């Protein structure tokens, strides 16, 4: 459905009014200032136009629509034929705002966007979320296993690489009294894991990013093949390293290379339907993009506090099933997963 704001006449507020409005908008947040005047007009132009503008602006600031009424003096809240002389009226070109009609439905659920990182939840999940979580990764996952003190299944090793998930026997299975590869172990106990978190890329970032993607995708497809259908797989971005770690890395690990790997991981998630966790972002220095030295004793691996922050990020970036539309019939084919979790798309 298209709303056309026919002949909307923008009422230009006098400087004094604008100044007051702008000041109030600054209080509400600088991002709302640019659309404030637009919303002020909407206040006096009826509900349809108000809705159009609301949806138009909701991408940036959902509070915009209510700001003008709260800020303007009551005598300027309704602007029309009897507008006071202090207001000028100017004409602007009609414009179109396209709104997905489904968004008018209060029960509307948007489709999940695999091209973007997993969005932040309003309320993080609890620690028991990890009880049936599987973590597969390198020494950084080892750090999560040891320092995190969270239940879950951690199949990790120092210097572990993504390809070794299929080849290296690192897990002892007391039932069979033998060491197994991660993939063999996961296949044997596949019903135990309700979500999977992968963390690879640091040990591989000195090599070809394309080759890493090829191997990573192969491992993920193999994992999908052995896990129950719909088991969500999260791909953690590679965390940055400190500047000192860059300088002394024997493998030429740099934050630039890590960024390249992370771009690849994001693309891989989009094309493969995996959940990309931008867990690197809270650890990046705003100016340099490097890991802050205080986060890591050796410039690469997190200590206890850093690992705690990693888990906090994960807890607040979970894909909740009920928040998203998974397409025709997909929800009905979901395996029986805990109600708060999402099981589609990975």
């Amino acid at each position, binding site marked *: 459905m298209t709303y056309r704001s026919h002949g909307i006449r923008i009422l230009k507020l006098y400087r004094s009014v604008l100044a007051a409005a702008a000041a109030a908008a600054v209080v509400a947040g600088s991002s709302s200032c640019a659309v404030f005047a637009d919303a002020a007009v909407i206040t006096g132009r009826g509900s349809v136009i108000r809705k159009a503008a609301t949806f138009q602006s909701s991408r940036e600031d959902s509070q915009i629509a209510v700001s003008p009424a709260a800020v303007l003096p009551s005598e300027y809240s309704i602007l029309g034929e009897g507008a006071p002389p202090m207001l000028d009226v100017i004409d602007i070109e009609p414009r179109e705002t396209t709104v997905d009609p489904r968004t008018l439905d209060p029960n509307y659920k948007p489709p999940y966007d695999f091209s973007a990182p997993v969005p932040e939840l309003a309320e993080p999940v609890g620690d028991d979320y990890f009880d049936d979580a599987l973590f597969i990764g390198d020494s950084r996952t080892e750090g999560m*296993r*040891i320092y995190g003190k969270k239940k879950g299944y951690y199949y990790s090793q120092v210097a572990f690489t993504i390809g070794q998930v299929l080849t290296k026997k690192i*897990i*002892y299975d*007391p039932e069979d009294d033998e060491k197994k590869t991660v993939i063999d172990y996961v296949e044997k106990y596949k019903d135990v894991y309700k979500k999977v978190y992968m963390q690879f890329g640091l040990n591989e970032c000195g090599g070809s990013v394309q080759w890493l993607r090829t191997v990573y995708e192969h491992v993920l497809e193999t994992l999908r093949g052995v896990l129950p259908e719909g088991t969500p797989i999260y791909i953690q971005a590679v965390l940055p390293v400190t500047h000192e770690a860059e300088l002394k890395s024997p493998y030429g690990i740099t934050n630039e290379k890590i960024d390249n790997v992370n771009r690849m991981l994001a693309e891989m998630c989009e094309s493969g339907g995996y959940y990309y966790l931008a867990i690197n972002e809270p650890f990046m220095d705003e100016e340099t993009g490097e890991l802050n030295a205080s986060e890591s004793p050796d410039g690469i*691996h*997190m*200590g206890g506090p850093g690992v705690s922050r990693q888990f906090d990020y994960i807890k607040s970036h979970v894909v909740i099933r009920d928040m998203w539309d998974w397409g025709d019939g997909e929800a009905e084919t979901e395996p029986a997963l805990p109600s708060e979790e999402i099981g589609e798309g990975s």
Partner: protein
Amino acid sequence: MKITKFKRIAAAIAAVAAAFGIMAGCGENNDAPDWSKLDIDVTQAASEIAKATKFDAEMVDLDADQITMSYGGDIRSADELGVTAAGGASAERVIVAKCSGGTADTVSEIKALFTDLAGTYAEYAPEEVPKLNGAVIVERGSYVFAVVTSDAEGAAAAIDAVCGK
């Protein structure tokens, strides 16, 4: 006659000396700990040794599941394992193993594990290799203590302390 008397006196002195010697020997044996009666909690022992030894990284006591998955395939001969270890790229760790069937096999398994780890760390984190190659490994009764640290002296003293020496 005089010679016979002298022999008797010499024999008496020798007997007294021998008796003192035996007594002295017995005294030494009484001071030496009887490790065969050593009975300790492996988890607590590993934790205490970790606290009393200097490590570069933060050390954490591992739970039973973590120990089984990480060490069960390498240290098979032990009845019980207590492990306190560092995370991330550190090789530092304390292993206390109880081996009622004898300690020799467990010592061999631990040495093989450390040799294997040293190979992994050689390229990944070479600074950890000397700690693995110079790990403190001590047998006491039915227990084996293994500490990967650059503080070998502190580790040895800590092992003595948990054994009550």
